[in-house]
């Protein structure tokens, strides 16, 4: 047994040390595998970034109240009297007489996207003064807070970067309304950073909404009081509403697009993986056939054929490892943090986000690279072990 191990180590070390001599053909396998990992990691980093932006927006201890049947903030709506009742619900956090709940409107306006110059659906949210207590993570990073009762607005960091005209001091014309940008806010990297915020009562007037709202976002006493809050609202005969945790709401919003990107990403990567396996097979096959004399010599000297198999597999997995590392790092340096925006199909509104190459993605990419190396090395390894010694010794 010990003998077998030392034999295996000896041949494997020999193989690995001679990789540089076969740079051409090894390079082919490495590039092929690196390519697969680049595609895999970078495509999935789009999905990861989008999910992070959407789900990072939510908090377990906040609940979103919408009309029954509405599938997003966009399609929800109820009257001001419902809002009054919702704010009386138990489980809601209160500071003195004020319920920490913000009745909001959510519409979209057309603004040109900087990158293409074509119109994009930018979300415009009408909020109440309590909105800033309900969402503790919202901070003004430039300029100042807007004054309630005026046409002043603040814009999210992401929105300012993606859409034209959203700098502090600028005005934005939308239909007959003129919005004055007075500040920029951050929201912990969440989807709100793509939004423009304004006083909800001002928005009601301009959009002819009377005294109606679309959603109420509530800060709960604690995450555990969600059930109390929900049950009280959904069993109240005066109301026709549904209640969801904010985290659940945003997870559901991002599901469709993330699934689509993941599906496409995995599909493309799988096909390319197949191609890369062929590349690795060819490389290892060449490596084995150019060394068939050496291998035959080793076996004639008494080296075990399983040692030869292991050494070939080790070599091809080493190529996989190198390719996987190169691919993962290239994807990381090329795409991590790349800012872009896309459309959330549930609300037809824009979400700005950054590509996110996570450690898990890198590890998964490396894992696939090793699998490709292993599978690619299998047939050539068996061939090497089965070489008939006399004829291989005679080979040129």
């Amino acid at each position, binding site marked *: 047994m010990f003998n077998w191990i030392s034999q295996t180590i000896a041949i494997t070390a020999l193989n690995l040390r001679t990789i540089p001599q076969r740079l*051409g*053909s090894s390079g*082919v396998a490495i*590039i*092929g595998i690196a*390519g*697969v990992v*680049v*595609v895999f990691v*970078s*495509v999935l980093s*789009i999905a990861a970034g989008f999910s992070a932006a959407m789900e990072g927006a939510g908090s377990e201890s906040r609940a979103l109240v919408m009309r029954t*049947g*509405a*599938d*997003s903030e966009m*399609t929800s709506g109820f009257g001001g009297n419902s809002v009054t009742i919702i704010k009386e619900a138990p489980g809601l956090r209160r500071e003195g007489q004020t319920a920490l709940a913000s009745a909001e409107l959510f*519409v*979209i*306006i*057309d603004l040109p*996207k900087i*990158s*293409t110059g*074509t*119109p*994009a*659906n930018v979300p415009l949210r009408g909020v109440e003064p309590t909105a800033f207590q309900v969402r503790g993570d919202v901070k003004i990073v430039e300029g100042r807070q807007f004054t309630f009762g005026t046409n002043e607005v603040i814009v999210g960091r992401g929105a300012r970067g993606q859409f034209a005209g959203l700098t502090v001091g600028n005005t934005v014309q*939308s*239909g007959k*309304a003129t919005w004055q940008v007075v500040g920029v806010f951050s929201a912990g990297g969440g989807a709100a950073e793509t939004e423009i915020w304004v006083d909800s009562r001002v928005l009601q007037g301009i*959009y002819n909404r009377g005294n109606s709202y679309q959603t109420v976002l509530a800060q709960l006493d604690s995450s555990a009081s969600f059930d109390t809050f929900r049950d009280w609202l959904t069993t109240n005969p005066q109301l026709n509403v549904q209640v969801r945790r904010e985290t659940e709401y945003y997870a*559901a919003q991002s*599901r*469709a697009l993330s699934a*689509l*990107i993941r*599906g*496409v*990403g995995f599909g*493309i990567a799988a*096909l*390319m993986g*197949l*191609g*890369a396996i*062929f*590349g690795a*097979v*060819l490389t290892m*096959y*060449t490596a084995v056939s150019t060394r068939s004399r050496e291998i035959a010599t080793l076996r004639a000297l008494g080296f075990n054929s399983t040692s030869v198999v292991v050494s070939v597999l080790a070599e091809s997995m080493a190529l996989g490892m190198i390719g996987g590392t190169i691919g993962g790092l290239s994807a990381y340096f090329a795409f991590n943090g790349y800012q*872009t925006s*896309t*459309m959330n*199909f549930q609300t*037809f509104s*824009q979400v700005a986000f950054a590509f996110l190459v996570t450690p898990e993605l890198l590890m998964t990419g490396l894992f696939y690279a090793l699998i490709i190396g292993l599978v690619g090395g299998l*047939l050539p390894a068996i061939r090497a072990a089965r070489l008939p010694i006399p004829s291989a010794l005679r080979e*040129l």
Partner: protein
Amino acid sequence: MKFLPLLWKSLWRKKFRTIVTLLSVFVAFVLFGVLMTIRTAFTFGVDIAGIDRLVLIHKVSLIMPLPVSYLNRLQNTPGVETATHNTWFGGVYQDPSNFFAQIVVEPEPFMKIYPEYKLPPEQMKAWLDDRQGAIVGVDVARRFGWKLGDRIPIGATIWQPKGGGQTWEFNIVGIYDGEQGVDKTQFFFRWDYLDENRAGGAGTVGWYVVKIADASKSQEMGARFDGMFANSDAETKTTTEKGFVEGFANQMGNIGAIMIWISVAVLFMMLLIAASTMVQSVRERTSEMAVLKTLGFSNTTILSLVLGESLFICLLGGGAGLALAWAFVQQGDPTGQLPIFVLQPQAIMIGVGLIVSMGILAGLIPALSAMQLKITDGLRRN
């Protein structure tokens, strides 16, 4: 021609290598076909959208409704062939993940403006006779197993029914088809049914579609429409349907494009790898080439032999790959979500071009060096 057996023999000199090379070319071109299909899907079929159709949306954004009263004014404008309106319904069938577009239309002008939707005349008549009637695309009908006469409940999201409840009921009276590239995942039903039964928003529509007589006048017609409704409560913004779809695709952002370009780059790398294998297989036979020359093979014969080998591998592998991709796309979209799922003829032409140029390039380098080879050098080299 008499050298075909020789070509055949040298191809299979190393069987395993040739098979693997063939397979990797094959996979690369399957991938190429699928990528081109996804690319078309991500642009929402902008290549197919009409330019003689104009789309009028509310100037503030497309979610804002427009009054139905605009229809007459549009219809009576000189240069307008047909005008109609559409409304987004956005309902949910059983589960939110079963997404498909439901659009509220007026059947007659709608079918006139969109001749690409093919509906049998008796089904059209049934639609006109049934207020709750809806026509659906063959793709969405297949996805949910719907047949003519089925009654379909759809959950309300934007438009609540007046009588309470959360559900709208429809009868499937028609199943439309269309050429490749026509979106067959949609669900169309009648505006009069919606308008009489919705709790709010009566007398409004989502957007207008206008077919104009002269496509070259789309710019000035658009400006005229926007001028007609300027300074009203609902100002409009008119674009060609093509521009509208393009703008919509741009809203998806560059993520589709990034995915495609990364993949195309890697695809080329895979092709380079396959090509380098072919180059290598010829290099190994340098001394054999010298022997052939000694036997009196002319330079051009050697050149065409080597080129023939690489062309054979590319044409067989790549052709089979493209054919499989085409057959796969013909089966329809496996996810049932992409509105357009078609491998366009241009993409196939590009693919064929790639196959041929790859075959020539991969063969040319070793073929030229084999051609210029001096017999003595070739025999000495080992």
